[in-house]
């Protein structure tokens, strides 16, 4: 242990609200983090349920039960928006970020506790608006990318798209305020002795994520505002007949959208780094390389956006640039993968549930990364554009990457959050059933994509039957595995064993393991002093 001072974590008198005010008026990073986790789980049931309906429809050729194709489009769009904005981001950033950032840097709370609360409630308001977008009118059938002209008033005349636009505005405001809070907390409030180069990698990941949010989300806000005025106030930003250009929307959207995918995966990188180090009982291999790999991923992530637009008629020199810039990202990503492997190499590895999810993450993220390099080639991207190959690619990096890191973080930290440890055997069963399920679900989609099956279409020719059946069977396995996860949560909270302050032993060297489990309402009221070793 590198920390000179042990410290008491007793509650501060007069700062411990109770009843409903404790939650609704909360200015406590742990309570707000918990509320984010709850919203994320509820949204996951909703967003995951939609994907389950999609897979049911696609299980066989022909139309099974969705006769209204607009409704199919609405499900696809809502699934994407919910998973991105209301499941992955709230869990990784709002949930784990809020809970563990102050704990890991040795400070009592976030920089702006009241603003932290408004970030959370704005997310709830955004979720309400998104649900309303499906209830009022005919729904948003545009895909999560909301491309005009389909999203223009001519093709979506009802109020649904406006609800979605304002939902994303509020979710964006929530994220930008959260980002300001996280950056200020990390840069200003670290415990004495914790220099930037001694911060745990999860904290570094959150810092870079917050900068991406701060700079990318306002561009989306601008684009959404233009779409809103195009729809309702007669402007012409995306209308070709009046001098506008729908490609402008794609530029603005993906200038936000590409950093957004790193916003979803960088916190996962951080969690996996903590876990691999803890369960290998070794400091992370190449700490500084890991830090600056994330910094460069964040930086380069801002200058590759048009690789999402290879089929819209960009000049060939533009495409050449975006191909090369995109491939450059494989270098820092490779640094991370090899550093995780080198951390495990020669370590004393224990394959507890969090470690299984972390290793699963590394394995499946590499698969998604490799298909990413394939898709980075403009010529190939044109031919597999809008096919299931793309669907397979981004589900490998997101639902098998980001979501695996959420589960890894959950098993790693639930003891600290709830004071009760998860049941190990059930946790491992959850991992293995999920691992088999998601691979059955998504791997065949590569084959379907290369064969030419288009995405966002509820029916397909008989030739695609076999792999679709396998994929839908995988969805069944994954769904059952997710039910098991909720059972694990129930078991943990009702009858889990009491968790020690540090259940993982000497490998877990970050500050959250120095406070009791569950972490008291206020922690680090005496700020710990950090010694000379880097805190991995």
């Amino acid at each position: 242990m590198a920390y000179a001072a042990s410290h008491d974590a007793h509650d501060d008198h007069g700062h411990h609200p109770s009843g409903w005010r404790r939650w609704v008026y909360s200015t406590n990073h742990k309570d707000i983090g918990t509320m984010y986790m709850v919203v994320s789980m509820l949204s996951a049931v909703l967003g995951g349920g939609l994907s389950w309906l999609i897979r049911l429809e696609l299980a066989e050729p022909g139309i099974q039960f969705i006769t209204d194709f607009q409704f199919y489009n609405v499900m696809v769009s809502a699934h994407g928006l919910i998973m991105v904005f209301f499941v992955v981001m709230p869990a990784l950033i709002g949930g784990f970020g809020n809970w563990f950032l102050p704990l890991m840097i040795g400070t009592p709370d976030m920089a702006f506790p009241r603003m932290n609360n408004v970030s959370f409630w704005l997310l709830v308001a955004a979720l309400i608006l998104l649900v309303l977008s499906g209830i009022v009118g005919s729904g948003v059938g545009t895909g999560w990318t909301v491309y005009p002209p389909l999203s223009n008033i001519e093709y979506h005349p009802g109020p649904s798209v406006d609800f979605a636009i304002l939902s994303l505005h509020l979710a964006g405001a929530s994220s930008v305020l959260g980002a300001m809070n996280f950056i200020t907390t990390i840069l200003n409030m670290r415990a004495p002795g914790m220099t930037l180069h001694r911060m745990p990698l999860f904290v570094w990941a959150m810092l870079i994520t917050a900068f991406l949010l701060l700079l990318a989300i306002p561009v989306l806000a601008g684009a959404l505002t233009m779409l809103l005025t195009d729809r309702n106030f007669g402007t012409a930003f995306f209308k070709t007949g009046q001098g506008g250009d729908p490609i402008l929307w794609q530029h603005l959207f993906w200038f936000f959208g590409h950093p957004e995918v790193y916003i979803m995966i960088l916190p996962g990188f951080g969690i996996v780094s903590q876990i691999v180090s803890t369960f290998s009982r070794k400091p992370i291999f190449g700490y500084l390389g890991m830090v600056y790999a994330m910094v460069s991923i964040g930086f380069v992530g801002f200058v590759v956006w048009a690789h999402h637009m290879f089929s819209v008629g960009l000049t060939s020199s533009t495409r050449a640039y975006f191909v090369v810039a995109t491939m450059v990202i494989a270098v820092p990503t490779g640094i991370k993968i090899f550093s995780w492997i080198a951390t495990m190499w020669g370590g004393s590895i224990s394959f507890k549930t969090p470690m299984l999810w972390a290793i699963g993450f590394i394995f499946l993220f590499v698969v998604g990364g490799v298909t990413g390099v394939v898709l980075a080639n403009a010529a190939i991207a044109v031919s597999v554009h809008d096919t299931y190959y793309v669907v397979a690619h981004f589900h490998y990096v997101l639902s098998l990457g980001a979501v695996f890191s959420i589960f890894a973080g959950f098993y790693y930290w639930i003891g600290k959050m709830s004071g009760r440890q998860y049941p190990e055997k059930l946790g491992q069963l959850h991992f293995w059933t999920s691992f088999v399920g998601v691979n059955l679900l998504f791997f065949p989609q590569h084959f379907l994509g290369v064969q030419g099956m288009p995405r966002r279409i509820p029916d397909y020719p008989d030739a695609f039957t076999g792999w679709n059946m396998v994929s839908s069977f995988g969805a069944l396995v994954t769904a059952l595995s997710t039910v098991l996860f909720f059972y694990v949560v129930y078991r943990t909270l009702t009858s889990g064993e009491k968790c020690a302050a540090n259940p993982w032993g000497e490998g877990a060297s970050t500050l959250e393991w120095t406070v009791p489990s569950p972490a008291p309402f206020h922690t680090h009221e005496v700020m710990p002093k950090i010694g000379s070793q880097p805190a991995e």
Partner: protein
Amino acid sequence: MADWRTRSHPWHLVDPSPWPIVGTLAALIMAIGGIWYMHGGPIWGFLAGVAVLIVTFVGWWRDVIREAQTGVHHTPPVQTGLRMGMILFIASEVMFFFAFFWAFFHSSMPILSRVAATVWPPEGIIPLHAWTVPFLNTLILLTSGATVTYAHHAIRLGDRSKFIKGTALTVLLGFIFLGFQAFEYIHAEFKLTGGIYGSTFYLATGFHGFHVFVGACFLAVCLFRGLAGHFKPEQHIGFEAAAWYWHFVDVVWLFLFVWIYWWGGAGYHFG
């Protein structure tokens, strides 16, 4: 204030507050009311949301000011955090304007897109002449940048009456700017609707004008706080934040003036 170094930590653990959820409610009412209005309903739903939002602003920032006035919460490390927060907020605002400049350049420069107008302004548009009212507005905003700096120097020297003068003059110049902008909008020969020129012009300059209004309100609050004696030579974060915001609004205007008014109108007036 002097004893913060002896505390176990210098940070401000804020008491539970109703304002975040009340403000969220305001946003929700504004959103639903706004959609109702856009689809043919009355506007009062949206306005009700705005009213709740104003109540939130007043209540929330009243609390912040009270916390500052206790002298124990805003320790020097907390002040550093507040400054960082403001800088980050301004950075996010820069990116918001970035989107509107992107739309402008995408529509006006053929090198950036295949459908951009080959002549700019597009045929039939009579743009405003940059070196008339827009240039006057440039001078007004630049002058206001000087007066706000004058006020800042005054407060650092503890000269309250000069601070009041400088800030009042800045607010006044801000509203004069807005008056000229309204005049310009009334007399412009192109509309928001029907074409890309009006879309980019009114959204970019309109959002800037709204930011001038917000900045002027922010400075007006500082004016009253100055009259109430809230600011000290060594502690005046609220004013500092307002001044930074004002300079940011000023810089955005310079870009608007050079590109949208001058370069964007040159094809008609100087071509």
